[in-house]
């Protein structure tokens, strides 16, 4: 059933209906995924534009390109856009939305209309944020620390806060849909132990979205009320405690890091077995580690606050728990590596991104241990060391996984093959550009350069120049896939149903899939990742 001849006349989700209405009112999870893909790409480039401004400003130690206020707004909006409008929805709302129903053999998510609603909520929040941006922007830093955000900033904090409050609901609804779908919509025979690890990871992600996001929503709402209605909950001049804001903020925002990285791990867990032609090593442990990360991830938030004035004893507990959460992440890395052992490893583009992910995430994760170590964190907290660390995790990890996933499932999404040679080149450029951008920041951070500095002592300049140079390479690396993927929509070779000979259910339906995914509800009688039973894929040719 999997290799039915592809007919160009075949009805699929893309050509089932035409016209703008058929897209804006669709309840098809695949179309909604594409709506998300377009919207988050848009925000990615806006966020990237601010990143570029930041890097250009930091080329010289003096604050010469823009004013201090402009710079503060640039890094604030870079952070907020990238975190709330790109990274958090990136893999879940695009790839998760597209793939989860297909992977479990369902026709759609459990609540298709809520799925569409979540996209509209995202768009409303996005428009609100863009309005905030064009009307002057916001300068609180993405963390909104009080009392600066609640009492001192003269920028559009209320609008930005409300926008992020709203976008939280989009995230909650997506998570709600995933959890219910995984519980209720699995095809006959698709037991929990047969679920692809992609689904397991997204299940864990969804739990974080459901239980964490409301906290940031209410916290930002309280800040907004403090600004607008003069309530005084975090105001130190009235006996309020600004550190309470940090507790509430990080209760969500630390687990939010796992919202970003878990889906990326989900992608890697699919790519590595497929391009090693092997059953994934330690399925149970990878699945369980996703859930463990989701659970323990909630217990470590105050490691962002070791110098914020929290209790000494509390800091000890949170430091220890932060080390504990590193274990499940390490398990995943080891298992992916072990999966390649005695495999048949191909160097196709998605696999190159997976290599990149494993490497960069390893560095990002290990430098996380530096930050969990109390005495070291005191020194490197709020310096570029932290910036480098979380970019290694979020850009080196999450974005590498996202790009890998987009390439891996591009034939399924678009029905076309992307040009392999360009794909490999772009993966290489991204990897090199990334390391050149962010590795120097570890050093300059340890030297003591604080983050969010518009001007800095001249002895830090060399590292900043390296970083800016890397950023320009990285920018090329990100633009390239955009160009050739768009190109492939028209000129790419027509993709077969299962170009990689992968095992997932999503590959047992035509490319692109029909509107309800399967012509007949599949019955699953096999375990996940039975690559021993799959034929080898055709050699990937490097067409130029």
């Amino acid at each position: 059933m999997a290799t039915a001849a592809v007919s160009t006349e075949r009805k699929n989700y893309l050509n089932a209906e035409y016209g703008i209405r058929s897209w804006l009112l669709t309840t098809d999870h695949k179309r909604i995924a594409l709506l998300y893909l377009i919207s988050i790409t848009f925000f990615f480039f806006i966020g990237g534009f601010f990143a570029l401004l930041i890097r250009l400003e930091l080329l010289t130690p003096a604050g010469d390109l823009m004013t201090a206020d402009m710079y503060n707004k640039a890094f604030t909006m870079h952070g907020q856009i990238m975190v709330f409008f790109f990274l958090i929805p990136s893999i879940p709302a695009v790839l998760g939305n597209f793939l989860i129903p297909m992977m479990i053999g369902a026709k759609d998510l459990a609540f298709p209309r809520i799925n569409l609603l979540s996209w509209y909520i995202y768009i409303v929040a996005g428009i609100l944020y863009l309005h905030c941006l064009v009307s002057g922007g916001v300068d609180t830093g993405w963390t909104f620390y009080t009392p600066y955000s609640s009492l001192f900033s003269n920028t559009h904090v209320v609008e930005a806060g409300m926008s992020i409050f709203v976008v939280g609901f989009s995230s909650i609804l997506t998570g709600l849909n995933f959890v219910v779908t995984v519980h209720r919509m699995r095809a006959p025979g698709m037991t929990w132990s047969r679920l692809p690890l992609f689904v397991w990871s997204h299940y864990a992600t969804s739990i974080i979205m459901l239980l964490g996001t409301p906290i940031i929503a209410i916290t930002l709402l309280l800040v907004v009320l403090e600004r607008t209605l003069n309530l005084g909950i975090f105001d130190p001049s009235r006996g309020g405690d600004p550190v309470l804001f940090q507790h509430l903020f990080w209760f969500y925002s630390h687990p939010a890091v796992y919202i970003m990285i878990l889906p990326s791990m989900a992608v890697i867990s699919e790519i590595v077995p497929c391009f090693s032609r092997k059953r994934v090593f330690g399925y149970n442990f990878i699945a369980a580690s996703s859930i463990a990360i989701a659970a323990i991830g909630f217990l470590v938030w105050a490691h962002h606050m070791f110098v914020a004035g929290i209790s000494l004893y509390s800091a000890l507990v949170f430091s220890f728990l932060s080390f504990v959460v590193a274990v499940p992440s390490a398990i995943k890395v080891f298992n992916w590596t072990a999966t390649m052992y005695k495999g048949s490893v191909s160097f196709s583009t998605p696999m190159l991104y997976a290599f990149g992910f494993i490497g960069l995430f390893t560095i990002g994760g290990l430098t996380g241990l530096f930050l969990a170590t109390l005495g070291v964190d005191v020194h490197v907290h709020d310096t570029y060391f932290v910036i480098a660390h979380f970019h290694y995790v979020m850009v080196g990890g999450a974005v590498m996984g996202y790009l890998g996933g987009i390439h891996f499932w591009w034939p399924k999404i678009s029905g076309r093959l992307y040009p392999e040679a360009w794909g490999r080149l772009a993966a290489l450029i991204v990897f090199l550009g990334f390391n050149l951008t962010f590795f120097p920041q570890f050093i300059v951070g340890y030297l003591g350069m604080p983050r969010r500095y518009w001007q800095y002592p001249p002895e830090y300049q060399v590292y900043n120049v390296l970083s800016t140079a890397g950023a320009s390479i990285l920018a090329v690396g990100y633009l390239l896939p955009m160009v050739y993927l768009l190109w492939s929509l028209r000129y790419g070779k027509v993709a077969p149903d299962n170009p990689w000979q992968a095992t997932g259910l999503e590959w047992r339906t035509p490319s692109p899939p029909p509107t309800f995914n399967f012509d007949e509800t599949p019955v699953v009688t096999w375990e996940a990742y039975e690559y021993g039973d799959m034929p080898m894929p055709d050699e990937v040719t490097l067409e130029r």
Partner: protein
Amino acid sequence: MSDRAGTGTTPLAVEHADRAELRHHFADVVQQRNAASLGMWWFLGTEIMFFGGMFCGYLIYRRAYFPEFAAGSISLNLLAGTLNTAVLICSSLTVALAVRASQLGKRKQLVNLLLATIFFGVCFLVVKGFEWRKEYTEHHIPTFYFSAQDMVNKHPNLHIDPQHAKIFFSLYFALTGVHALHMIVGIGIFSVITFMAWRGKFNPEYHTPVEIAGLYWHFVDIVWIYLFPLLYLIDRRGP
């Protein structure tokens, strides 16, 4: 696993064309109802966390500024609070009975019970509105010329700090305000449900909307069950 999706095959061709309320992507009504119910429960889980953030702030400040919290609590109207708690419990009863009526297919009874629920909901908001009005006239709303001088005078031995009293009232208005917002949303939902019930959309086989709207309503009631002692009943006797 209790929630395994079954093992039989369901050909897509059988689309249950006779059942208008069954959405295309579900295999059967039971699957659809279970999905909706689970979805609602998870949503209530997020709601617990939503209020939880404010409860966290409440606990921390209550611990720090107990006298002000006690005095603020005493300044609230115990009778109104008790009455409102009772009103909400009555509305929960009518919701529970309404779900039962829908299970039994008693349409007229269902509509009446839903209307009663809306009535109790409105009653709650009216009482709450009067309380807020009183607090407005007492200058206890942080937004408008906040003053806690009356509390300072009333409890000389508590050494009330007006700033800390303001924290109590900030939390009080944030908590009751967000709760009232949930009530308003609930009344909106129930208006739609009532209309659907009046049109005869529900029957013993299909009444999921009544059920899940009921879950939401009960949840809002439970939030109030906690708000009542936390806001109204702290240390009425004075420390």
